[in-house]
């Protein structure tokens, strides 16, 4: 029996995504997610309890600060970058990529499948984490005189989901380019993004980050007062909703450019010769 026609581009992306998701499952992701959810709940409840003892207790402000500074800028980025590097760079380092590169399918499709799977898994985890944080905070009833408003949990869940696909794209590019992608990811997250956060709002370099458009995305959804806006965006003393622009479009461009650069390298590099170079 002769072999059928090799998978097409889209089918390869889907199959690669399916296989990547299955393999990620073996990294004890779901155990870690359950453990992480318990920890997040505990942190949120504790922070809520401490905030509730103050006179100007405000559940919305407490939750938004915690969800932004912990979930959106620490947990989601690092979880996504870690999973992304595991998915793509792990195979390059242990040379199992050879089994994939021998197949009659596009390497770009393989990379896109990895991105899709990592983005989707992290999006779910990030969104669930945002809701768990809210649940922990909502259990402090003193903070919510009118009852907890779950709309905020939805806003941050959406933000984390969007962030997951952007960080997954960054992970793909770092993994395709560098031998130590997590080190470069640290430069990006801790270095570049923190520096850029303090640049004037007009700085074009802001578009080269994920945090900046993501922050504008969050501010656009939660419609904060000036105090909360300053807490979430310390560099911008007088927040003006007019400055929000088109954050989703900026993130889409970031993903597109990053994936294109990653795909270009992934499709052309002789990874097996790297040790000899």
């Amino acid at each position, binding site marked *: 029996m002769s072999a*059928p026609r*090799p998978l097409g581009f889209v089918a*390869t992306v889907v199959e690669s995504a399916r296989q990547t998701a299955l*393999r990620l499952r073996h990294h004890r992701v779901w155990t870690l997610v359950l453990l992480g959810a318990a920890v997040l709940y505990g942190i949120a409840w504790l922070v809520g309890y401490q905030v509730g003892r103050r006179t100007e207790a405000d559940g919305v402000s407490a939750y938004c600060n915690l969800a932004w500074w912990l979930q959106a800028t620490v947990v989601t980025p690092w979880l996504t970058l870690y999973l992304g590097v595991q998915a793509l760079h792990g195979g390059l380092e242990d040379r199992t990529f050879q089994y994939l590169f*021998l197949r*009659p*399918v*596009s390497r770009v499709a393989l990379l896109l499948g990895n991105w899709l799977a990592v983005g989707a898994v992290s999006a779910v985890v990030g969104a669930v984490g945002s809701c768990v944080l809210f649940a922990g905070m909502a259990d402090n009833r003193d903070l919510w005189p009118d009852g907890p408003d779950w709309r905020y949990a939805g806003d941050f869940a959406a933000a984390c989901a969007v962030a997951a696909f952007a960080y997954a794209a960054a992970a793909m590019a770092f993994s395709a380019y560098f031998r130590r992608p997590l080190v470069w990811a640290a430069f990006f997250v801790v270095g570049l993004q923190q520096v850029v956060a303090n640049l004037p709002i007009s700085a074009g370099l802001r578009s080269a980050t994920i945090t900046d458009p993501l922050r504008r995305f969050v501010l656009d959804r939660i419609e904060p007062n000036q105090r909360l806006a300053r807490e979430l965006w310390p560099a911008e003393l007088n927040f003006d909703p007019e400055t929000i622009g088109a954050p989703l479009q900026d993130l889409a461009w970031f993903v597109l450019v990053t994936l294109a650069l990653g795909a270009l390298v992934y499709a052309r590099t002789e990874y097996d010769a790297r040790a000899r170079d």
Partner: protein
Amino acid sequence: MSAEAPKQAAAALRFQRVTKWYGTIVALLDVSFDVGCEVVGLVGKNGVGKSTLMKLAAGLLQPSQGSVHIGPHAAGTAAARADLGFCPDVERLYENLTAVDFVAWMLRYHGFGRRAARDRAAATLQRLGLGDNMHRRIREYSKGMRQRVRLAQALAHEPRFVLLDEPMTGLDPVARAELSQTIRSLPAQGVGVLVSSHVLHELEAVVDRVVLVHQGRLLAQGRVGELRAQLPSQPHRLRIVGPRLRELAAVLVGWPQVAQVRVHDDAIEVSVAGEAGFYEALTRLGAGWDGGMHEVVPLDDDLASLFGYLVG
């Protein structure tokens, strides 16, 4: 030196003047050879470019100069990869997957539907002796079992050409014999094979021809016997067992073709510098020798000796 390669009806693998640099290091220099529907052994010391040749054929590396083709397709193209099976010399596999899941996954990319891929993966693993263990995770496998998984992913899609990089590694003698049989059966199914191995005597039993590589160059190619015959500067060595060995040695040492005779307790070892007329004369001598000659065995007519003579 280079023996004339036998003419192939249609070369399944063709290296044409291939040179490969890694930065300033020349890994291969102007290498040309064809492999048809046959088993060809790739022989050379470590680091001489065997794996580079394999990876060039697999399309994992690109030649700096020259070209590599699998059938009519340039190596590395999707069409070439569809026709190719490669068993790489890579220790790691997808450790958390079962063998059947792994092979089925690879088959999916060749266009097999999920059920067809799984059935075919199971059948291939069964054929390679992993039938009872195919549902265990690969991380629990022994070295020999892992090697069979690597083979399974190379053969499952029934490629037209197979590259086997050190396929005997880690296999026990029974498994080696089975693998040798499998490799030998491939040309009959229309499959060309290029196989590298350090176990020269086992390789010799499997291959139709050999390609010897040394320091990035093609040193020789052809059948072992033909290549050996083209080394007149290296005397052939024979081991003769029979009665009255010292007397026999005294006779042989007087023959012009004999360079040296060594007498051992139970045999004599004869170095033959020129073969012209030697074997006919030896046959006549043996026929008239009182008690006869019990055994006449060539000592250096094998791949290992040839390899030793050529690369030192």
